[in-house]
């Protein structure tokens, strides 16, 4: 399958490792949290406050706040906006993100 990276001839620097709930996943320089999670096949990383329903990216531009995630112990970060750095620890978030 052709990928978006191939389509635009992207030549990013070497991939680095971040963690999702302790599990190692790869990320590319310049990727946001949401992009790296999508690339790893993950589409939800938050349970809603009321019903605990799974959520991930919806608007993709920082307006809807559906893609909230905990990065390096800071809860409620918008995964579609926040870029990743080597060693970042991403944690799925339940409820308000302040409970655990």
């Amino acid at each position, binding site marked *: *399958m*052709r*990928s*978006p*990276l*191939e*389509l*635009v*001839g*992207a*030549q*990013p*620097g070497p991939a680095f490792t971040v963690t999702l709930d302790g599990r190692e996943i790869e990320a*590319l*320089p*310049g*990727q*946001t949290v*949401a*992009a790296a999670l*999508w*690339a790893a096949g993950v*589409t*939800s990383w938050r349970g*809603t*406050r*009321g*019903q605990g*329903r*799974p*959520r*991930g*990216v*919806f*608007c*993709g*531009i*920082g*307006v*809807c*706040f*559906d893609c*909230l995630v905990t990065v390096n112990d*800071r809860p409620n*970060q*918008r995964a*579609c*906006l*926040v*870029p990743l750095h080597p060693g970042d620890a991403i944690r799925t978030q339940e409820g308000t993100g302040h409970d655990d």
Partner: protein
Amino acid sequence: MTERAHLAVIGAGPAGLAASVAAAAGGVRVTLLDAAPEAGGQFYRQPAAELRARRPQALHHQWRTWERLREGLRTHVQSGSVRHLTEHHVWCVERNDDGFTVHALLGPEQEEPAEVRADAVLLATGGYEKVLPFPGWTLPGVVTAGGAQAMLKGALAVSGRTAVVAGTGPLLLPVATGLAAAGVDVSALVESASPKSFVRRSRALAAQPGKVAEGAGYAARLLRHRVRLLAGHTIVEAHGTERLEAVTAAALDGAGRVRPGSERRIPCDTLAVGHGMLPHTDLAETLGCGLDGLAVHVDDEQRTDVPGVWAAGETTGIGGAALSLAEGHIAGRSAAARLTGTEPGPGTWAAADRVRTRLRTFFAALDSVYAPPAHWTEQITDDTVVCRCEEVTGGAVREAVAELGAGDPRTVKLLTRAGMGWCQGRMCGPAVAGLAGCGLTPSRRPFARPVPLGVLARAGELDHQ
């Protein structure tokens, strides 16, 4: 004062870029503030620099226009007449006795403040997408059409292998062809407008040969990627438990109701859905600018009714990138003339004015063609979540309307919390208004984005030092 007049332009999409270049060329000092790490806005959203894309134009249209804009910005930045502040999320513009203070939050964290003082302000804040709810629209894998495109253009990311693109509006075509070009199998483009409505408006649409050719280009690309076009259809449900597995599409009858028995299930892991665009007007409203309906009211020079405040692009009405460029150019020229104490002559922006008139007429015609199904609220079941943030269902909203007498979104909000969450009603506003049986009205949000209390407490302190 010997220093040149200072104009703050908010938003670095087509309108803001055209305005910045025109204003700088007209002799004023410009500070261009934008939330993104790179200029371009949504239409010319660029891949993150570290991804080092050699052919970003493969995901774009009107790339030569972008190259001209980018070069114009670069020239003026190098000469010092434009200062480009990236990753500045503007949350409020305040009017003072001697000008304006633009309040922003820095970086993706949006915790640290920054303030910019200016003699005048030009709002080019763009728009965001309207999405009407249906059962299953909160499942992971369901994204807005613009969101799918933003993730593709900016992050070079797609959420799956098989997509359906659905809703209504001109945005769906580039989203479908963009995803297909990036290797996603796009099973169908489900557009609720019927082919008949295009024929009815064909004269107004054919008056724009360039736009018709653009449409034909998309049609050819859809064919090439074997994307099935289901016009006069709508999505009635998204299926899945933990994530999207399929959607059900159905045909619409002449009255805009789902035709019984026409339902078909289409397997997919991604649904990109949108029902048109809404202008971002928060900053303008807080400044006290008057609106026409949902858009900022401007005169022929793109001036709002607040002295010293101009507006251009989607914030003054949805009309696409080419119209935004024309409006931005006019606004920048006008601001430069007025701030240097000259009256703009009648021919100052004649060409841009002709483009503006032509495209406004064209988009008014498009607007009457592209429409959600007339009875879209019937697809919202009582257990469909309408307010995604506060998890308020269609049933709860209907109860507030039918049993508690709520007749407008504000009362529904007070009774149910719909629109009270993180997004401040931007996502559910149109649906709540529809369920309450009234039109969407401006929401009057004092701040354009969440602001840490500490920042709010310190705002303006710099002025008093």
